């Protein structure tokens, strides 16, 4: 039962994340003025993620996946409120560092929950099915957001995504422990 809720959660945050990830490149383009800065923005993201994985991993086993997912949801909900306000390249760099950290939290937790819940024998099938739903959610979100950006502005996307993340934060808080 809880596993199904986890899939709903992952589907939702997957949607919210794919609302912003392809499009916030547009924002980076507005703020940054060179490809080198672009490279740095993404490099910092990856680097922070790399450095934080060991800590996150340990924490996941001690505190549990639920706490981490709540941190991720609320962290994203808040940081997305800062994005529309960024207008200097160093703002973007700082935000990318936080995004790297949160991204690592999500990636690691997604995998630990799956690892704790699936059967070794049928892992392929189960993880395959898990990906169907989260990917469909992501696909719908990307396409719909494309239209949204045309109608609204790039700024409004961040606000909408933030609300979705906030909702997912509540959803996760209400979930029973342990997750699986």
């Amino acid at each position: 039962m809880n596993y199904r809720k986890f899939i709903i959660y992952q589907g939702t945050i997957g949607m919210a994340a794919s609302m912003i990830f392809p499009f916030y490149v547009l924002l980076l383009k507005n703020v940054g003025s060179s490809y080198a800065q672009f490279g740095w923005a993404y490099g910092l993201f990856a680097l922070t993620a790399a450095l934080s994985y060991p800590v996150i991993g340990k924490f996941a086993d001690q505190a549990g996946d639920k706490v981490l997912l709540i941190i991720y949801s609320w962290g994203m909900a808040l940081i997305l409120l800062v994005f529309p306000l960024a207008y200097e390249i160093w703002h973007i760099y700082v935000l990318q560092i936080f995004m790297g950290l949160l991204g690592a939290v999500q990636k690691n937790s997604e995998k630990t929950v799956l690892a704790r819940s699936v059967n070794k024998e049928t892992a392929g099938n189960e993880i395959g099915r898990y990906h169907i739903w989260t990917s469909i959610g992501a696909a719908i979100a990307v396409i719909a957001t494309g239209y949204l950006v045309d109608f609204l502005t790039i700024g409004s996307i961040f606000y909408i995504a933030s609300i979705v993340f906030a909702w997912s934060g509540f959803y996760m808080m209400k979930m029973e422990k342990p997750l699986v």
Partner: protein
Amino acid sequence: MIIIYTVIFAGSLILFQTQLASPVVEDRGRLLPVKMKSVKSSDSEDEIKNIVREANLHDDKISIAGMQHSQGGQTLYPGGIMLDVKQYNKILELDEKNQLITVQSGVTWAEIQSYINPYGLALKVSQSQNIFTVGGSISVNVHGRDIRNHTLIETVESFRLLNAQGKVLNVSRDENSELFGLVNGGYGLFGVILDVTLHLTEDELYQVKTQSISYDEYSTYFTKNVLQKENVKMHLARISVPPDSFLTEMYVTDYSTADDQSLLGNYTTLKRESIIAIPKFFLGLSRTNEWGEKMFWNTQKEYSERINGTYISRNNVMRSDSLFMDYNNASKTEVLQEYFVPINQYTAYIDDLRDTIKDEEDFNLLNITVRYVGKNEEAVMSYANDDMFALVMLINQGTSEESIDTTGRVIRNMIDVTLKHDGTYYLPYYHYPTKEQLIEAYPRSEEFFEMKEKYDPDERFMNLFYEEYHK
């Protein structure tokens, strides 16, 4: 939790709104970021009138913008309203018989070309690139490669002008004629150009001839082999900038009417921007060091040799690539300069120019093209006070204050040299020149500024160029 989140959400939204309320706008030079009150655009004449009316009511300044490739804030004014005319871009009427076209001022040369090419018609004068709007081009009174039609003003039949009082005036050589010479080359200071009627000409097939020559043979070559040969219609030259051949080698490209015009049909497909990776790469190299400069010059020269003898339609000559020059660097930018010097002064001028800049280590000159523009003093701010060569320079510079100082000093020196040889300089660029230099190059500057006061006493139309030089 929900309360905290809602408060932060609302806070962010309010901050975001206030940021949006005063957009920061830059022109292509990227040296003048300016905070405007707002950016407005429209495709309807009524709405544009409304914008001017409202501005009159609230005493707001308006700066008019097309593609914003001017680099001295001609399209910008702090706290003002930027009227972006790019959406006001319909083609209204084509009179095939009399070869006249009427367009809204936000239309680009490219859009006109696509429209008239099937009729076998072509533009008389435009820049070498076709990305610019008609209104912007009129406001800087451009010239191009055509050696028989000189400045754009020659090809303008008439236009309608929305003036500072919100009234629409017909302007031509017969009606409101004083404004004709003011708005052409008027940098958007006299009103919004609404629609324009331009003279066209027939599309023709040209044969390309290229040749390398030394800079001191150029004046004679040009007079004898280009100007005096009736079938040569367009011309472009380049002069070398790498240190080992600094301002000495040239190669010229002439476009002459092809003997067999029946072949034109094979060449009329309008070319699109080709793959630009190669020129972009070599231009990039030339920004970095001397060896790169040499490579860039050599590839340009080889390319020019390769196109010798080929055919091209007039419309295609007038749509040169420009994308490869796009430059994105956080701490550097590329600026343009253009100097006009009488044909007979050319050799001496180049010698002086070389002496002036050869030892300037921090001055990175990437490219110089040379065109011809015949005397035309119809515009009050006319740069073509004689039959002149026009040298367009592409300069790579930093955006720091120090870099601006260095480039400014070198440019002022170059302008002094130009003025010494009875030359002038082009006004759409960064405000490096002094007011004294402006007055020497444009003896009618004072008259221009007086006319501005007469036609627009409240300074409804404002930009940084006027602000810098009129007092």
